């Protein structure tokens, strides 16, 4: 005879009357109807629009921060895709946004929202709860040759550097559902849905507003390793030169942290490196 010991845990939390406001009121029934529009947005968040202070005290403001994105697909995944486990996304519906998009994430200020890069009209209604995209080297413009190209100013005390960093490696990100203030991805007739590709650049430089031993700052490399490479007030490097100039362990850490930039809101992604 088997004895199963099950212990109920006391409940926490408040009921629905304390629920936050959301943009839409969608039920299972309405999700079955018709078609609607699906918007795709890109967001570097306030860190890159308004600047921030790195974990080692450098105030970094971005003039430009270009990322180049392509091969964008939205899914109605079932079961819901789990980026922690990776693997193939199993979906009942998937739709592609064609094109290559080079976006300057630094444009705007604290009042600026995510940047719209495209809309698919008349996609099947429902909840798009997974998204994949690739980051590839740009073929034109200031970021030509780079998947990520940042043009920034870094200041600390009386030190001030022009910073131009280009990262040429490509990445393929697979994300589950958007995690944030509101739930996204619901498409209904007359109610467009939105999927957001989010980039967390504080992962590279860290954040002085977070504890020094927090997960973020333990992973980040800060700005000091880049400042150590200065030449007449300018840091201008790419991965090829950084591999030669940075200490081996710092370079390895940089490569690892670059795979963590892609998110959907606060939800993390599964990442593969494109060579």
């Amino acid at each position, binding site marked *: 005879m088997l004895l199963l010991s099950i212990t109920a845990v006391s409940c926490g*939390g408040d009921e629905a009357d304390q629920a936050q406001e959301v943009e839409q009121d969608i039920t299972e029934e309405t999700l079955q109807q018709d078609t609607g529009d699906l918007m795709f947005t890109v967001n570097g968040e306030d860190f890159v629009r308004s600047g921030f202070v790195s974990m080692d005290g450098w105030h970094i403001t971005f003039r430009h921060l270009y990322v180049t994105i392509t091969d964008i697909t939205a899914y109605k995944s079932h079961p819901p895709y789990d980026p*922690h486990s990776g693997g193939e996304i199993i979906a009942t519906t998937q739709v592609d946004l064609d094109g290559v998009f080079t976006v300057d994430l630094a444009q705007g200020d604290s009042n600026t929202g995510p940047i719209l890069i495209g809309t698919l009209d008349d996609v099947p209604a429902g909840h798009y709860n997974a998204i994949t995209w690739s980051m590839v080297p740009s073929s034109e413009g200031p970021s030509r*040759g780079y998947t990520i190209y940042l043009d920034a100013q870094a200041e600390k005390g009386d030190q001030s550097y022009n910073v131009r960093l280009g990262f040429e490696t490509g990445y393929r990100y697979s994300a589950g*559902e958007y995690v944030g203030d509101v739930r996204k991805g619901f498409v209904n007739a007359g109610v467009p849905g939105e999927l957001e590709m989010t980039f967390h650049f504080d992962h590279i430089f860290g954040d002085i507003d977070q504890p020094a031993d927090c997960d973020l700052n333990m992973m980040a490399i800060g700005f000091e390793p880049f400042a150590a490479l200065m030449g007449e007030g300018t840091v201008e490097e790419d991965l090829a030169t950084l591999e030669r100039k940075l200490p081996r362990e710092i370079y390895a850490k940089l490569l690892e942290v670059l*795979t963590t930039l892609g998110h959907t809101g606060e939800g993390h992604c599964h990442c593969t490196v*494109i060579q």
Partner: protein
Amino acid sequence: MKTLLPFAALLLLTVPLFGHGARAIWELQGDSVHISASYDDGQPLSRAQITVFSGAAPSVPYMVGMTDENGEFSFLPDREESLDWDVQVRSAGHGDMVHLSLTEEPEAASEQGTFSTLQVVLMSACVVWGFVGTAFFFASRRKK
């Protein structure tokens, strides 16, 4: 310093990479749903914001709350409202979403269907003892 990589030459490395982040898991404890949230390094996601969504109205929070110091949170789902539930956990830029599909009646064991080592041993012993007993039964009949 710029190196343009032709798209045609791009090859996907199949090595999965997953840096830092938050992870939430769930299990049934009686008729309650128990959420446990932690960072990838195992540290609990303490005082994290919890938002529970019912499958009946998936874009509207059904309940909001907060994990305790151990990154844990429990709630009692209304199975008449929906059997599908989603729970979002967020803290300081980290977040995760878990998806639950319940049965109509609460189950005595974990929804995720795992047995303890003791349970597995006991079940195996019962099966073996059943075979042994059957063998003894037929062996005793032949002697008569």
